[in-house]
């Protein structure tokens, strides 16, 4: 099986799907498949990174509400990044990428619910991470509600990625 060489496929251009399309006429199908496999490997990596945040948050004490919300958010954020990478090749490590947490493919299940509720989770996370005056009653969704939301998101994300060929 062929594999792509370093540097990282995600840094080979602004958008790895565009890179793949540009190379489609230059490379043989096996090489293109190697690119696809690498994109999928990275999507799986993002998914697993997010899930690690999620599991970490689940293991925290109930009293650590700021940390719980923060890690649940990062769990969700990386799940969404994995979806976007597979869906349209988008990948970014800049801070403004957080504004795209509500960007979902049109066929993603419960899309409108996630659009709204993940935006709320992002606002709650900002409150938890940056506002020293905030207390738990300021949250729109308490940490248990955030846990349910992110757990469901991981279920939908896993099914979505597997259906598109990502090995999870």
């Amino acid at each position, binding site marked *: 099986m062929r594999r792509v060489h370093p540097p990282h496929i995600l840094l080979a251009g602004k958008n790895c799907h565009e890179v793949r399309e540009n190379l489609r006429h230059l490379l043989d199908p096996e090489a293109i498949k190697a690119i696809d496999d690498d994109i999928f490997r990275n999507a799986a990596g993002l998914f697993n990174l997010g899930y690690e945040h999620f599991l970490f948050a689940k293991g925290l004490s109930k009293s650590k509400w700021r940390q719980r919300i923060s890690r649940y958010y990062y769990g969700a954020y990386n799940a969404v990044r994995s979806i976007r990478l597979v869906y349209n090749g988008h990948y970014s490590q800049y801070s403004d990428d957080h504004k795209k947490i509500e960007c979902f493919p049109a066929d993603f299940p419960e899309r409108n619910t996630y659009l*709204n509720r993940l935006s709320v989770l992002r606002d709650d996370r900002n*409150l938890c991470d940056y506002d020293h005056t905030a207390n738990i*009653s300021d949250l*729109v969704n308490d940490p248990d509600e955030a846990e349910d939301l992110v757990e469901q998101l991981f279920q939908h994300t896993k099914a979505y990625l597997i259906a598109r060929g990502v090995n999870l």
Partner: protein
Amino acid sequence: MTSSTVEEKLPSNAKDLLSSFEKKTGLSNLRTSLLNRPDGDYLVIYLANPTERLFSILNQVESEVVQDSFFSTKVTLKKSVSENLLQSSETRLFLKSLAESLTASRYSFQEDFFSRYITSVSGAEDKIVAAAHHIVYGRRGAGKSSLLLYAMHRRESPSRISVWIDMQVYAHRQDLKVVTDVIHEIIHQIISQTSNPPSSEHVLRELKSLTGAIDEPSEQNIRNLFPDIKRLLSSVSQHLDDIFIFLDDLHLLDICLQPRLLDFIYAFARGNKVFLKLSAIETFTKLWDPGTRTGLERPHDIQQIELDYNLTMTDRATTHITSILNSRALYCGLPSIHSLCRDKEVLSRLVWVAAGVPRDAINIFSQALSKASFKDQKKVNITNINESASELVSDKLQDIELDSSGSLAQANILLGRIREFCVKNKRMNAFLVEELHGDPAFTNIKRLIDLRLLHVIHEGITIREAGKKHLALILDYGFYIGIRAARSVQLFNKQTTQASYDEFRRLPVFTLANGDHQALKKSPDQ
């Protein structure tokens, strides 16, 4: 920072968001709270079940509402079941939605149609969309019009034309002006949906003139127009995939005229990619007149779709009716239909008292819900269902009482004998009657079934003599449920489970008397 919850006085931004959301969803007086945070206000709207559809509306509202200050308000939905769900906004919307479901017209639900439509138990949807002539049979409220509407909505494409005619406006008529008016309407609807239509003025003028004349047009007058009509439709249909003509409730037309009307339409439909989709109640319908050889003959010319299985498949009927009610409940933001019911027996009883007819079930449940809400109950119970069923029977009896043709008079007398047999003599709501197909008296039994006053619970039961088959029926629940005097009536299959064959065989046999068919002389042969 501390956040505060302000429920009564919302700032203008939040009010605009809430009011727009309520307007778009049909919900009203929703429970809300407002969180004051350094990053702006958060309006939280509480619903028993904030579904994807409601979030979609919320996102639309948030993008449309122009906020009037620098500090914008954000909005979200949260799940919170009201203490008294029956009094909630979601339940009020549910009741409204049920009321809207009771009559299906071509404009029912429009763009929401598929999100509310529940497929039939028999998979009739695949058949009705086929390019063939079809008649859909079933009792009133079985979902005939909904099935035709399903086909119409599935066809939305510029290369497919749909004509919809509600036969209610021609109820009981037998004159040939009905024919000219229906054909006029068909051509008018086809032309109005055609880009660059051929000239239709001459044909439409002639048809209008025949309809408006003092004298009834002759059959020859009408047939003289057919070559022009056929050419007109041919020039339209050659650019199309097909044309479907939906005639809803054909049985309302006088039974003598039904085969004649179909014969006329078929004359110009044939070979022009024009297909008829009819709905009707079987015992009040005549597609083919063997004497004059007019109409549509089954199965050569037209295929039948049976939509109604009475109570012979209660498990399927229960699933179907529960699905219909559940989809409406979810649509309105309720957790499920079960959340409104005291226990699962409520829906089982509902299916039995409605005899598997979806519209009757919707009607009875709607009434039962209103009663429970009025009595400040937390949930709908079986008593509410029984009371509502007993009230519905008077509506059904009106169909007999208002019948002016006299063809139902004997059926009404027969019903009286059956009521006495069940309620007074045998004190049992179920009975057997011998299946005498073609016998006029047995036709009256079938008419009472179509009027939803008797309900089939099993077919083809043999008691003693081989070859003699019996139909197991129950008298409509409304005649003895919820009425103090009739409480001693033993209910067959009270637990609404699957009854055994032996239980059916042990039912009392009702014998049809000679007089049970006499009034049928007034109505034509079936």
